[in-house]
């Protein structure tokens, strides 16, 4: 099998699995007080699952008054996409319109599938196929989820508030394979829980980011710098 078709198979496997999350995003977003249009706007334009869940999570707890914290949390969660872009930019190439579309689709999954391919043809195929499958799938399932959420009405009776926490846990889980991120996760959870009763909505999440900056700067419990890709 050629590198290209191997990459396309990986794209379908990852893309279809991920696109299904869109249902939970759409339903939770409507439950957080956004309308169907606002929910779809996030999936169409922001197009980064972690940031989207963060924005709706903070709007759910603090409403529009927590808007500043919602924007800041979404942006902080989006910083990793800038690093992914550095990794995929060398094999994307092409004119600026193509690069801008590539930038829009530079997310966890497109980076993971493309950088796992051995050849440049495979990398390009992996990036673009994963991108198009997830973009179309994520937006369709977001719309379906939002319409379902709209029909459900009172969401806590259906446990949708618990589903939001489970969704964040699912995004966090694959990142906990080494000691350093586990320690950061525990530290951040402690900071957020300690501040929760005392500060406005959204602030506990931003304060927890300080844990990542401190541990990241000192590389406490981390590997030697050379070992980090």
């Amino acid at each position, binding site marked *: 099998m050629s590198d290209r078709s191997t990459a396309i198979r990986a794209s379908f496997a990852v893309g279809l699995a991920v696109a299904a999350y869109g249902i939970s995003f759409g339903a939770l977003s409507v439950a957080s007080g956004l309308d169907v249009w606002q929910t779809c706007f996030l999936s169409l*334009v922001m197009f980064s699952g972690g940031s989207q869940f963060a924005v709706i999570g903070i709007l759910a707890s603090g409403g529009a008054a927590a*808007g*500043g914290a919602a924007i800041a949390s979404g942006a902080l969660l989006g910083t990793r996409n*800038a690093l992914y*872009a550095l990794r995929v930019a060398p094999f994307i190439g092409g004119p600026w319109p193509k690069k801008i579309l*590539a930038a829009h689709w530079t997310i966890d999954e497109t980076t993971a599938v493309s950088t796992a391919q051995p050849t440049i043809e495979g990398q390009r195929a992996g990036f673009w196929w994963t991108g198009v499958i997830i973009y179309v799938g994520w937006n369709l399932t977001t719309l379906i989820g939002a319409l379902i959420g709209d029909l459900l009405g009172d969401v806590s009776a259906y*446990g949708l508030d618990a589903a939001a926490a489970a969704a964040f*846990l699912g995004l966090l889980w694959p990142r906990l394979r080494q000691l350093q991120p586990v320690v950061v996760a525990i530290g951040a959870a402690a900071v957020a829980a300690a501040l929760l009763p005392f500060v406005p909505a959204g602030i506990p999440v931003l304060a*927890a980011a300080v844990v990542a900056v401190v541990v990241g700067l000192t590389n406490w419990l981390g590997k030697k710098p050379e070992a980090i890709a």
Partner: protein
Amino acid sequence: MTIWQVIILASIAVLALKLLGYLVPPSIVQRPTPARIANLLTVALLSALIVVQTLGSGQGIALDARVPALVVAAGLFALRVPFILVVAAAALTAALIRLLT
């Protein structure tokens, strides 16, 4: 700020960060420390969001059906159950507890 303004500004910020990676020379940002901080930021923010979603109640803490639902979710993720099924199981757990209590 309205909800629309929040959504548009946050979307522009996230999109701009993606574009930034195509604009800056890789040598500047590919150093280990910024890369490590960005990865740990994701972990810290997700972890804090789990706490807020599980325990938050207005401006305070509440222990309710969301806690056992999260425990169920953690167990299922450990068993490598697919994301969408785990999220549904968590919602179902919380809904059942609320129905029965």
